């Protein structure tokens, strides 16, 4: 190989040439400092790129990721509350065959209040569970 095998240097540095081409390029590199420097440069840039990636600073994405992977309980509680309320209405209707607006409104209020308390308690529990300072004592 008398001419500079410039088109093969990249694949040579990556170990992607076949045996015959690898041997030919390797033999050329022993005689040609220009091409040897080129291969060294390819490897150096690759190393610098890997170091650049590995040294990249963190941005602190955990809070956002955590919010997204934790299923919000709000909708679950609303649906559960509606189901419980409808169930209570059915039972009451079956029992007395009459429903007053006062009873319907009162039941909705109390079911909603209980669901709200459960929701707040759940959020508090979840916050406590995930705080990184929970095991720290004075």
């Amino acid at each position, binding site marked *: 190989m008398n001419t500079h095998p410039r*088109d093969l240097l*990249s*694949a040579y540095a*990556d170990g*992607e040439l076949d045996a015959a081409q690898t041997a030919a390029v390797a033999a050329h590199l022993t005689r040609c400092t220009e091409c040897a*420097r080129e291969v*060294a*440069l*390819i490897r*150096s*840039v*690759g190393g*610098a*790129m*890997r*170091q*650049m*990636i*590995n*040294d*990249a*600073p*963190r*941005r*602190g*994405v*955990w809070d*956002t*990721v*955590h919010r*997204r*992977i*934790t299923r919000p309980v709000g909708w679950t509680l609303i649906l559960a509350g509606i189901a419980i309320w409808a169930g209570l209405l059915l039972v009451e209707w079956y029992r007395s065959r009459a429903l007053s607006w006062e009873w319907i409104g009162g039941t909705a209020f109390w079911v909603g209040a209980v669901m709200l308390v459960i929701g707040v308690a759940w959020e508090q529990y979840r916050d406590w*569970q*995930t705080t*990184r300072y929970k095991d720290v004592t004075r």
Partner: protein
Amino acid sequence: MTEWELIQRCREGKTSAFEPLVRAHEGPALGYAAAMLGDADEAADALQDAFVQAYRGLARLRPNSPFGPWFRTIVRNTCLDRLRSPRLRQRTALTAAALDERTWTEPTAVRSTESMGLTKHLAAALAELPDEQRVTILLREVEGLSYAEIATTLGVPSGTVASRLNHARAALRERLVARGLGPEDLS
């Protein structure tokens, strides 16, 4: 607690067990995403998506498999999807000006000024490459994929991979030289 024990706790629904995994992998993953996408904010969004996908897909991870390489594949696919989306292509003509330097210029304790300068120049030079060259060289240099694996990932022939790498390396060298960096700065 080992990485696999954390993964098992995540599978049991303990979301807090995912935090150490996120903290351990977010730096390099963000660097990779920023290099792929050439935009720090887009990279941060992609990274969040990748972590959420990873959390939901932990059940697919084979027992005792390392999290890092598996997660990097998810980051790569997330970035490739974003690069294919018309929204990103319209938003970012990937030039040095478009590169948000915040990703690379926030200091860390161990990095020297010189290496930060090199990192900044390299990041800017990478961002100036056409998408297909930048992605190809990152798949090769950062992930260490073979030409055949890159060809499969990108859906192009192996010869195209070799040609893109040739062009990408020549273009990178030109851009680094234009920024006043010589071979001695990189070795």
